[in-house]
């Protein structure tokens, strides 16, 4: 039987994977995926709590988050495509001009 603890642990592992991926990988697409992973870890936690506390508000919230995340990904991917068209490159370590 899956308890709340299982869900919390699973969601933590997912979040950790996403965070490590975000900090270590160079490919901008992979970074995007890592960010989605962290987001969905949070979604999973919301769903789990919603279920265990018998409160539908959590699940409604998750639906909203899906919608916002989809919009965000659309914008992010569009930026990436424009970037690639300009410099034929998606290695994030090459982009450091935006500083002091």
């Amino acid at each position, binding site marked *: 039987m899956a308890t709340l603890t299982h869900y919390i642990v699973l969601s933590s592992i997912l979040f950790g994977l996403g*965070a490590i991926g*975000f*900090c*270590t990988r160079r490919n901008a697409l992979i*970074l995007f995926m890592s960010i989605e992973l962290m987001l969905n870890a949070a979604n999973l936690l919301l769903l789990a709590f919603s279920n265990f506390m018998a409160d539908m508000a959590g699940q409604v919230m998750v639906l909203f988050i899906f919608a916002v995340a989809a919009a965000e990904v659309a914008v992010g991917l569009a930026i990436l495509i424009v970037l690639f068209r300009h410099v034929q490159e998606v290695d*994030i*370590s090459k*982009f*450091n*001009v*935006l*500083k*002091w």
Partner: protein
Amino acid sequence: MEGYLFLIPLIPFIGFLINGLLGQKIGRSAVYCIGCSSIGLAFLFSVLAVYQLACSPAEDRLFVQSLWSWITVGNLNIDVSLMMDPLSAVMILVVTGVSFVIHIYSIGYMAHDESYWRFFSYLNMFVFFMIMLVLGSNYLVMFVGWEGVGLASYLLIGFWYKENVNADAGKKAFIVNRIGDFGFLLGMFLIFITFGSLSYFDVFPKAVHMYEHGLLAMNSPVMVAICLLLFLGATGKSAQIPLFVWLPDAMAGPTPVSALIHAATMVTAGVYMVARTNILFTLAPTALLVMVLMSAATAFIAATIGILQNDIKRVLAYSTVSQLGYMFIGVSVAAYGAGIFHLMTHAFFKACLFLCSGTVIHAMSGDQDMRSMGGLWKKIPITYVTMLFATIAISGIPPFAGFFSKDEILWKAFTFPYYPVVGKIVWFIGVLAAGITAFYMFRLIFMTFHGKFRGTEEQARHVHESPFTMTGPLMVLAFGALCGGWLGIPHLIGNYFGHIPNILENFFEPVFANSHEIIGAYAGVQHHSTVLEWVLMAGSVAVAIGGISLAYYIYIRRVDVLPKRLAETYSIYHKLVYNKYFVDEIYYYVVVLPFYYLSMFFWKVVDAFCIDGVGVNGQAWLVQRGSGALRLVQNGYVQTYGVFMLLGLVVMLWFFIV
């Protein structure tokens, strides 16, 4: 009857505004007319007011006119209000009268000057402030006038500001006066703390009341402090030791200014202030002791310096310092009336002397050195006669004005009720100084008007008597120098010739009555034999005649050899006196230079280094360097920011969980 008191200062003020703002446009004659008539009107109103004052019974002799409330803060209430009592009545007559005469004289003297309108507007401004000083009924109004006359003095000393010497002399006068004013201000604060008011009508009755009820002891420290601080103010304005150094330099101004401001009126403000505050001074004998010693020293030292000066105006300047010393001897042996009496007679003869020296300088085409004069009396006889009158007056020969006032001061010093022994020493110094005064004043007359002319050919051809606008005032003032003293004939002589009253003393009695009572009760009423008084009187006249004879012997009979030989025989003393005891140099090294270095220290080290360098620029430097280090964190890599965000998250979690 009291309603028009405000017109006396107002009219000169309007004259100042018109001449100052429109003077350049309205032309010479209009400026002369406004300048003189405003003072003339003020004089007329003063005469009217004083006449009414004198007509009222002795105990009612006080006019007060409150104009408006100036400052009301907590328990500090200050009105701008004017008052006239016998003391300010005499002062106001001297101030407006002498000013009027000198304004007339200035028409002739400034006839060739381009900024005549500036001159007349400054003069009117001076008279306005002087009237405020004299008529003010509290210390703050007096202080406004006190500062105002200082300003006018500064502007007029540096009137010919294009020459650096004149501008420097103006600055010196202003700065030295500032030191005195500092003392005056502190004295005023102390008066307010002690008596809770600055109005004469509150302070003086309260002081008497407190003394009578034992709340305020004779010679209490606070009274001594108040009086010494006020006296410090007076030493600045009235050129006493230690602050007398500015007055001789002030001769850089036009001669009518020297006559009006630096001889007759402004410099006597200190004497007036002490006489006005007489009750407080009476309650502080120690302060009086300090004052009498200082003023006796001033009278003597300034007189000795006068012996060897060659600039005609400088001789008169040192003589002014010396005579001011006499006035202060008068007020500081608690003979306030005698001090004011000498102030009055001095205003006549010293203004006359200065104006005469002005016409001499005029005749000599601007040369002030007595060594190039000589034998002028035939060419400028009116100047000669009037100047001789004034010189006899200052030398103290009866029946001229100076004799009566000087003799009264010396007699009062001899009978100083608080410190009889000191009084006798001061009397001796005073008599000595009187002899020296007679000597150097007749030296001036002999060098200027007698002997052979020593100037250039061109000067000799140019020598001429001045126009009537200049000689007229001389005659008026010479008349004053002759008769001014008859207002205060001592009882001794008055009784001898029948019953001639001492008009001035009786007139002043209501003002000084409280002081006289306190002194009488404290020191006992003194009786002196009339023989002694006669002897002292004869002695001082004999000393004066001795001084004159000596001057005659040295500068007329043996003029070809004696002055030179004396200078060689006593060369050390000659050098010492000729260089004015090196007072200016001593002050330069003891006061000015240390102050200069102190200021440099505050400028370079405290201000430029500590405040600007460390304080202001230092903070900017710190922020710049700090942010320079911090901005390296922002390196442009998205992942670095991600790491920092995660770290932040971890820290927050750690906070919430642990």
